[in-house]
C-alpha cells in the first residue's frame, strides 16, 4: 500500500498487508485489530482443521454406541448436545466454519476477478460500455442483496446437492451480488488513476492501452481490495446464513451450514432448547464480528486521517531532512470506504 512513510523500508514480512497494519497500529485501534485477527484466525483454523477438531462428522447420526438421539442436552459425549435431526451440535458448528470459509473464498475470489476485470476495462475505456455497465451495476447494487442472492440461488441450484455443488451455488449467488461492489471501487479508482500524471505521462510517451492498464492502472487500483475483501467476507457469511435460514442454502447431508442449523433450531428455542441455536448463532456473530473488526481496522489504518499513532516524548525525534511528500495517500474520500464506494455513482 502506498501509505508507507517516506524513506523507511521494512523487511518484506513487515510490508505484508495485514502485518504491516498491525505493526502500525496503536492503542485501541490495535486492540480492535488484534481482537478481529484472533477471531478470524480461530474461524480460519477451525475451518481448516475441522476434520481433526470435530468429534463427529457433520452428517453423522450414530457411532458405535448407537444413534445419538435427537435434541439431547449437552453431555460428555456431546458437549453441545444434539440437534433436532440427531446431529452433534459441536461438530456441526465446527464443520460449518469450513463451509463458511469455502463459500467466502470462492465467492470473493470470483467476484474480485470478475469485478476487477469489468471495473478496469469499463473505467479505462469509458464510452457506452462503461455507461451500460455502470447502470447495470448500479441497478444490481441498489437491489437488496439477499433477495438477489435468493433468486440467483434458485436459478443456479437446480440439481446441485453435492458439497461443492452447493458451495458453488451459494458462492455464485453471492458473487453476483458482490461484483457490482468491486466493479464500482475498481472503476472509481481506475477513473481517478487514469487522470493521474503518471498515466498521462505514459500516454504522452505513446504507451499502448493494454500496457498502461496492466502496468500503471491495475496495480495502483487494487490497493483498496484487501479492505473490501474483509468487509465483503463478513457480508458473504451473513448472506450465506440468510440463504440457509430461508432454505435456499446448502443441504445438511452434504455440508454443515450455520444458517440452516439456525432455521432447524427455530422451534427448539420456544421449547427451551437453547443449545441447538445459540452455538451456530454465536459462531456467525463472532466470525462476522472478527472479520468486520479486521476490515474496519484496516480501513482506519489505511486512512492517515483515521490512523492513531503512538505518543512520543516531548522534543524527541530527528528533524526531517527533506520536504518529501509521499506519492499520494490512500484517502478514500470523506466517507472512508463508504464514500469511496459512492464515487462510482453518477
Amino acid at each position, binding site marked *: 500500500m502506498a501509505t508507507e512513510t517516506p524513506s523507511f523500508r521494512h523487511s518484506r514480512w513487515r510490508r505484508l498487508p495485514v502485518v504491516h497494519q498491525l505493526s502500525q497500529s496503536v492503542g485501541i485501534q490495535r486492540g480492535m485489530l488484534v481482537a478481529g485477527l484472533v477471531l478470524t484466525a480461530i474461524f480460519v483454523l477451525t475451518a481448516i482443521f475441522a476434520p481433526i477438531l470435530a468429534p463427529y462428522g457433520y*452428517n453423522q*447420526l*450414530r457411532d458405535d454406541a448407537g*444413534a445419538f*438421539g*435427537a*435434541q439431547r442436552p449437552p453431555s460428555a459425549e456431546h458437549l453441545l448436545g444434539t440437534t*433436532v*435431526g*440427531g446431529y452433534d451440535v459441536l461438530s456441526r458448528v465446527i464443520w460449518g466454519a469450513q463451509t463458511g470459509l469455502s463459500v467466502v473464498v470462492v465467492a470473493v475470489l470470483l467476484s474480485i476477478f470478475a469485478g476487477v476485470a469489468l471495473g478496469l476495462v469499463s473505467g479505462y475505456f469509458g464510452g457506452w460500455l462503461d455507461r451500460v455497465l455502470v447502470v447495470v451495476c448500479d441497478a444490481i447494487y441498489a437491489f437488496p442483496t439477499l433477495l438477489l442472492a435468493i433468486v440467483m440461488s*434458485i436459478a443456479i*441450484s*437446480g*440439481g*446441485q*446437492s*453435492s458439497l461443492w455443488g452447493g458451495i458453488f451455488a451459494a458462492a455464485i449467488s453471492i458473487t453476483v451480488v458482490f461484483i457490482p461492489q468491486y466493479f464500482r471501487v475498481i472503476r472509481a479508482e481506475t477513473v481517478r488513476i487514469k487522470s493521474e500524471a503518471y498515466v498521462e505521462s505514459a500516454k504522452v510517451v505513446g504507451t499502448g492501452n493494454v500496457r498502461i492498464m496492466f502496468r500503471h492502472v491495475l496495480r495502483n487500483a487494487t490497493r483498496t481490495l484487501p479492505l473490501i475483501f474483509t468487509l465483503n467476507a463478513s457480508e458473504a457469511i451473513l448472506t450465506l446464513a440468510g440463504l440457509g435460514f430461508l*432454505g435456499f442454502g446448502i*443441504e*445438511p*447431508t*452434504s455440508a454443515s451450514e450455520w444458517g440452516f442449523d439456525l*432455521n*432447524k433450531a*427455530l*422451534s*427448539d*428455542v*420456544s*421449547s*427451551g*432448547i437453547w443449545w441447538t441455536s445459540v452455538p451456530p448463532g454465536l459462531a456467525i456473530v463472532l466470525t462476522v464480528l472478527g472479520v468486520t473488526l479486521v476490515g474496519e481496522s484496516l480501513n482506519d489504518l489505511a486512512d492517515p486521517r483515521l490512523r492513531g499513532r503512538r505518543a512520543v516524548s516531548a522534543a524527541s525525534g530527528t528533524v526531517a531532512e527533506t520536504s518529501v511528500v509521499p506519492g499520494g495517500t490512500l484517502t478514500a474520500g470523506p466517507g472512508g470506504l463508504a464514500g469511496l464506494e459512492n464515487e462510482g455513482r453518477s
Partner: protein
Amino acid sequence: VTALAISGCAGTSGNNSSGSGGDSITVGTTDKVTTLDPAGSYDNGSFAVMNQVFPFLMNTPYGSPDVEPDIAESAEFTSPTQYTVTLKEGLTWANGNELTSSDVKFSFDRQLAIADDNGPSSLLYNLDSVETPDELTAVFNLKQENDQVFAQILSSPAGPIVDEEVFAADALTPDDEIVDGEAFAGQYTIASYDFNNLISYKANPDYQGLLGDAETETVNVKYYAESSNLKLAVQEGDIDVAFRSLSATDTADLEGNDDVTVHQGPGGEIRYIVFNFNTQPFGATTAEADPAKALAVRQAVADLIDREEIAEEVYKGTYTPLYSFMPEGLTGATTILKDLYGDGNGAPSEEKATERLEAVGITTPVELNLQYSNDHYGPSSGDEYALIKSQLEASGLFTVNLQTTEWVQYSEDRTTDVYPAYQLGWFPDYSDGDNYLTPFFLQENFLANHYDNQEVNDLILSSATTVDPDERSAIFEEIQAKVGADLSTVPYLQGAQVAVSGSDVDGVTLDASFKFRYAPLSK
C-alpha cells in the same frame, strides 16, 4: 400407536345444541389459502376454508372416512352412467339466493370450463355432463359405468357447490367478490376476510346438511408463517386451537404443558420411496438388468427401514409407521408390508434382507442413489433421509448416495428417469382407498416409474365399479397384497393429524375424513 387410528372423535356430538353464541374461538394455522374459488385451488389450506363455508353434495360425517349425502336428500346411481343427486328442499345461500340444482350444474360445469392450472378439475375425469331435470335434481352423466369413487369426488376439492349469481362461469372469481357476495352455504359464512392473515367465520343458521349446526358463533382463523410462532401463540393462549402444522419438537414440548391438550388423529398424508423400475439397481435399462435382483433390492430396502425409529426420532410421533399403501383408518387398509417384510412385527430385519440379496446372488453392498426434496415435504426431510441412509447402511448391505434437489427441478427429473429411487408424499383428494391406488399403480400413472402389473391394473379398474362395499374392500386388500409383493413403492410413514388446543376447548375432531371442521369446537 394404534389408539389414535380411528377414534379421536370423542366429543363430537351436539348436532342439536343450538350453537352457543357469544363466545368466539380462535384457530391458528400455518396452512395457506391460495384462493377461495374451488376452481382455482387444489391444496389443503384452501380446501380447509371451503369445507367450512361451501356446501357439498356428499360429505364425510364426523368420525368416518366414508361419504354420505350432505345437502343432498339422496344420491345414487340411477343407471350405470347416471349418478342422480336430489337436493334437500328450501336450501338458500347466506345472501338469500336459492340454492338449486342449477347451482350444482353451474359449479361442475365451470370447474371443467375453467380447468385452472392450480385447480382440481382433473379429479372430474369421469364426468361427462350434468343435467338438471328440475330444481332439486342433478344428474351426473359419467363416462365410465358404476364409478364408485364418484361419490367421494363430490366431497373432494372438486366438489364444493358455488352460487351461480356470484361466481363467474368461465373465470376465477376473486376472493373479495365471493366474501362480499356472501356466496356461502356451509356451516359457516365468512364475516371478514384478510387474505392469509385472518378470517372471521360466523355460524350459518341456514345450513341444513349432514354435519349439523356450529357450536360456536364466531371462529377466527389466524394464519401463521412460522410454526414456532404458532406454537408460542397456542402456548400463550393467544389462540385456542393450533392445527397444522406444529413441528415435532413443538408438539413434544406442548405435550408436557398442562395448559394445552394435544390431540392426535389419523392423517391421510403418506410418505413413500418410489423405485424407478428402469434405473434402479438391476433395473430394466441398467447394464445388469435382472427383474429378480431388482425386486430383491426393493424388498431388502423394505426389510431394513425402521419406520418406528423415523417416526419417533424425526417426527416425535407426529407421523406414525405405515405398513401398507393405504393409510390406516381407511376402509380396506391392511398392514401387508408388516407381514411380508422385516421381522414380521414391523421392526427391521437385517437377516431377511441379507438372505434375500444372497438368494438372487447379489454382491453387497448395493449402491443406491436416493433422492429427496429438501423444500417440499417440510423441514424434516433432510433428517428423515439422513436417517434412512444410516439405517440402510448400518446393515452393510447398501451404500446410499443421498442427494437432494430443489422441488421444481425434482418434479421434472423424477418423471424423466433421472432418479433410481426417490422420496414422494401424497395427500388424498378424498378419503377413499382408491385415491391411494389408482394414481400410483394403474398403468400410465403419475409416478411414471415403469411399474406395470396387468393384474393390479385390472383389479383397480374393477374396484372402481364394484358397488358392494365389502366386495370392494376385498379387492383393495388383494391389490395391496399384490403391490406389496411387487413393491413399486415402499410406503413408510403416515402423517398423524395433530391439533393443540387450550384445555378449555372441546370438540377437536380429527378423523379419517382428514377434514378439520370448526363447527364442533366450543369452550
